[in-house]
């Protein structure tokens, strides 16, 4: 039967290695929180800009705005609907 000292050494080495890896990963992750925070801020900024632009777009494309602009420019609504009892001469030809 082999001595268990090799296994014990291997396990101890593995524990130490994993602990070091964990410490490194945690260290990296904890500092990247700052970058993630910055990225989130940037996303928030673009979301806000997007919302502001959407608001402008909706305001410009609303019927209320189009109607007011059309009146300003002199467009008038066709006030009467014509019903032709007989076909116009041009259509007949």
């Amino acid at each position: 039967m082999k001595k268990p000292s090799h296994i014990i050494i291997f396990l101890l080495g593995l524990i130490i290695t994993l602990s070091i890896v964990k410490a490194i990963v945690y260290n990296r992750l904890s500092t990247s929180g700052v970058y993630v925070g910055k990225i989130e801020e940037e996303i928030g900024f673009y979301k806000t800009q997007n919302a502001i632009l959407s608001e402008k777009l909706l305001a410009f494309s609303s019927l209320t705005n189009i109607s007011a602009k059309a009146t300003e420019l002199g467009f008038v609504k066709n006030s009467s609907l014509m019903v032709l009892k007989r076909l116009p001469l041009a259509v007949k030809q």
Partner: protein
Amino acid sequence: MKWRYPFVFITFVALFFSIIGRLFYWQVVKAEMLSELARFQYSGIVKILPRRGEIRTSDGFPIVANKVSYLLFVNPTEIKDKNKTISTISSLVDISTASISSELLPGRFWVPIKAGIDAKKKEEIEKINLPGVGFEEHYTRFYPEASIAAHLVGFVGKNESGQDKGYFGLEGYYDRLLRGKEGYGVELHDALGRPILSKRNEQTKGMEGSNIVLSIDRSIQFLVENKLKNAVKMYGALGGMVGIIQPQTGNIIAMASLPSFSQKNYQEYDEGLYKNPFITNTYELGSTLKPIVMASALDAGVVTPQTKCPICGGPITVSDYELHTWNDKYYKDTNMIEVIQHSDNTGMVFVASQLGVDRMISYLTRFGIGSLTDIDLQGETFSSFKPRNAWYAVDLATTGFGQGISITPIELLVAFSALANEGKILEPRVVTAFENSNGEIFKVPPKVKGTPITAKTAKIMTEILVNAVEKGEAQWTKLKGYRIAGKTGTASIPVAGHYDPTNTIVSFIGFAPVEKPKFVMLVILDKPTSSIYAAETAAPLFFDIAKDILSYYGIPPSE
């Protein structure tokens, strides 16, 4: 000296137990409080507010959206020059210096000054770079089409906890769906207050509000509101209403009421204006109810279009009440087609008497009168019928011509849609689809409510109504080339036990084109002063709107 050893020993033991006791107190008894305190030190709870869902018209345009706005706040401990800060803020946000000054008390760290500041104003204030002045971003309701469909949409106010809550209309009815669900995130910080990423996953997921898609056609709603506004002004009316429904689906295409309010500044308006009178107010609508009673009698087989009225030669006395026609003109042996054409009250008294109380109640119930239509809007009301044993002969007679019975405009519109849809009534609805935050769309299928009359009766009644438009008192205003079924209504207003002799509520209800009805429309004007008759007020408004809708749908004249 022997006592010293036990004394030291007992002292140490006592100290040991007191330390153990103290540790027990902090680690067991006060453990929860301490861990809470620690959590406050190294973490912060971030509230993730959901964005309220949009309300879109049938073309996908949001008539209610969200816009970014800011809350201006001040931290008094960081202010360097108090007077300068107060006067600058006061001039920029239009709040008196006295009211700002009274808020900035010592010991306060966060003082809200003004909410609803737009991005442009925020930039303007930020440029001045005032220490201690900051902004909090919020989303508030934005109405690209201004106050269009205000009664239908409702508005967003605050509840007892200061959170957004929808009131009236769709905002009220679909509040839970629109507002979504708040989420919370716990963010851990290091000693310098920097966020720690590895511990950032403790979150309760919130949910954005769902968008709702309406059956409302934005263009028709816009034109209806403009036409109604002009008509109310032109006819000197106190107010008015227009409701349009698609009979085959129950979709409400447009619904407008005046006077109205602005959803954005709802606080500036009288609370009485918030209710949508089209679904909340009951009226004695008069002659516009006659087609429903006549259709019931035709369906029951108690009259035919050619049945002659044997009691129409003059005023009729019922239980000591003398009942007249609206213009005191009488037509002896008139038939049922002419009764509707002349809007003959005596003829309708005859029809009601032929129908009888039981069948009258039964048919009106089948038409949905005297109960809720179940439209998906907040605040719908109805007026139930009086008990069967309280119906007297005069009640039956007046119900025949639409007086003495109170109904909401939506009840009448839905009941009338049966005539345009082969006798079938569909549940009226304003929302046709929901869209959740993942973009999934759930459509709301149309729902048949009942079939009060047969398709044959509906067709006969339609022809009687076409005749009423062609030859009735409103014929001067009818649309040339189109076959439209319709009926005027000039109703007296009950005031303290009698009817007001000077004021009326005028209405016109109809549908077009008769061959394949695209819409059923009800127009009501409240106490017009230019004329008290529907044929001179409500009817021209109906045909004016109908002309534009037919043109909008590209429906050519049939004649």
